[in-house]
């Protein structure tokens, strides 16, 4: 089986054309980006607003948890049966599945901002929108990014399944392979989509550490040229333990 898998990857026709691996990878990434972007535009502002006002927090958490029980395959099939074939119905299903983790991330991130910092911001006269954008959202970045990452992985996985309802992408190899019992093709598709998921996860983790404020931020090599001056030890009169 391993040899047949190698043969499958070795076939030069596999690497060009609209059913080739590069085209399928791009398709898959395209669906994922589209769905995650739409879901982010919907979920992040609502989550941030609910987190800021703290009104409807229970509803947000309830909706996010409830949506988690939705079977992805069923949602995809239902949307296609109700709305027809094409790009839109499966994309809407992917958006629906990407919303809960981002909603929960934005809500819990903003609501979990250090209340002392929020009070201090209010105390020095910052307006509500300044508090939201200047204090709470920067504090929420790690949890928001966690939500975006989880949503992205979920969409990559579900977009694979969406090949069953006619979407392109890497799931085609698995679904079409199964239809004609072409196991090397199924395995090849599975391997590529698994590698794609791990790579996307690593890229998002790295991006996340680049934009996260605070001590965990990843510094790019160019920023390391000038090492931060180490503060001189402050002489202290306090007795050391």
């Amino acid at each position, binding site marked *: 089986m391993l040899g047949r898998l190698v043969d499958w990857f070795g076939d030069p026709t596999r690497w060009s054309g609209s059913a080739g691996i590069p085209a399928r990878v791009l398709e898959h990434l395209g669906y994922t980006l589209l769905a995650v972007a739409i879901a982010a535009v919907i979920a992040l502002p609502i989550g941030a607003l609910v987190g800021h006002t703290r009104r409807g927090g229970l509803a947000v958490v309830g909706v996010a948890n409830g949506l988690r029980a939705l079977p*992805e395959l069923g949602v995809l*099939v239902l949307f*296609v049966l109700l709305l027809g074939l094409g790009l839109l119905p499966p994309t809407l299903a992917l958006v629906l599945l990407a919303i809960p983790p981002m909603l929960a991330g934005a809500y819990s991130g903003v609501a979990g901002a250090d209340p002392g910092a929020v009070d201090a911001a209010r105390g020095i006269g910052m307006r509500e929108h300044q508090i939201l954008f200047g204090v709470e959202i920067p504090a929420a970045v790690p949890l928001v990014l966690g939500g975006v990452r989880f949503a992205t992985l979920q969409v990559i996985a579900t977009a694979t*399944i969406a090949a069953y309802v006619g979407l392109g992408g890497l799931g085609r190899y698995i679904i079409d392979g199964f239809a004609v019992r072409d*196991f090397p093709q199924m395995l090849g*598709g599975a391997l590529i989509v*698994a590698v794609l998921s*791990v790579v996307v*996860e690593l890229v998002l983790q790295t991006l996340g550490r680049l934009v996260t404020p605070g001590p965990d931020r990843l510094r790019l090599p160019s920023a390391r040229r000038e090492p931060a001056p180490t503060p001189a030890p402050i002489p202290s009169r306090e007795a050391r333990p």
Partner: protein
Amino acid sequence: MRAFGYDIDELVVDHVLLAVVPVVLGLVIALPLGWWAHLSPGARRVLVPLSGALYTIPSLALIVFIPLVLGTPILSPVNVGLTLIIYTVALLVRSVAEALDAVPDTVTTAAVAVGYRPVGLLLGVQLPLAVPVLTAGLRVASVSSFSLVTVGALVGIQSLGTLMTDGFQQDYTAMVATGIVGSILLAFVFDALWLALGRALTPWARARQGV
């Protein structure tokens, strides 16, 4: 009960077995691994990123891989079961380790002082105190397990997902909706069951709340 030409009871039984057995087995496997990660920083540096990586692999891909790695028949429900075991272990190893980390030092020190040995300490003191965190992890694993079982229908593994695939082929919306609602209801029933079990195992938490 029959509907849409299917024995619904049989589909429900298959669905429940395929969703619940792997979650329980996954918990049983995750406990010693999580304990190991709790005790050894070296083990943790390997186990936590490895579980993270396994958790990122899409379900359909994992279901297709397992026959290649283990030589199981490609149409066997074992592939779906093993996929769900892998996800459950991946999710719970970290929960178990963190739950054990969170047990206060004073408690473990006191237990050691009255003569608990490592295994007794784990079973008699640390695990009971970790139950709330474990229950939370188990519930997440269980809910997603019920929806992932349906993916098996794409490679011919029978569950309520069969109503979704066959309903799609027959353009029969009510059949698909039945599959979705059934899968969600089962997930909620077992979610409530895990919650009740977690409460039953921590009577002191109820006593503290005065319930």
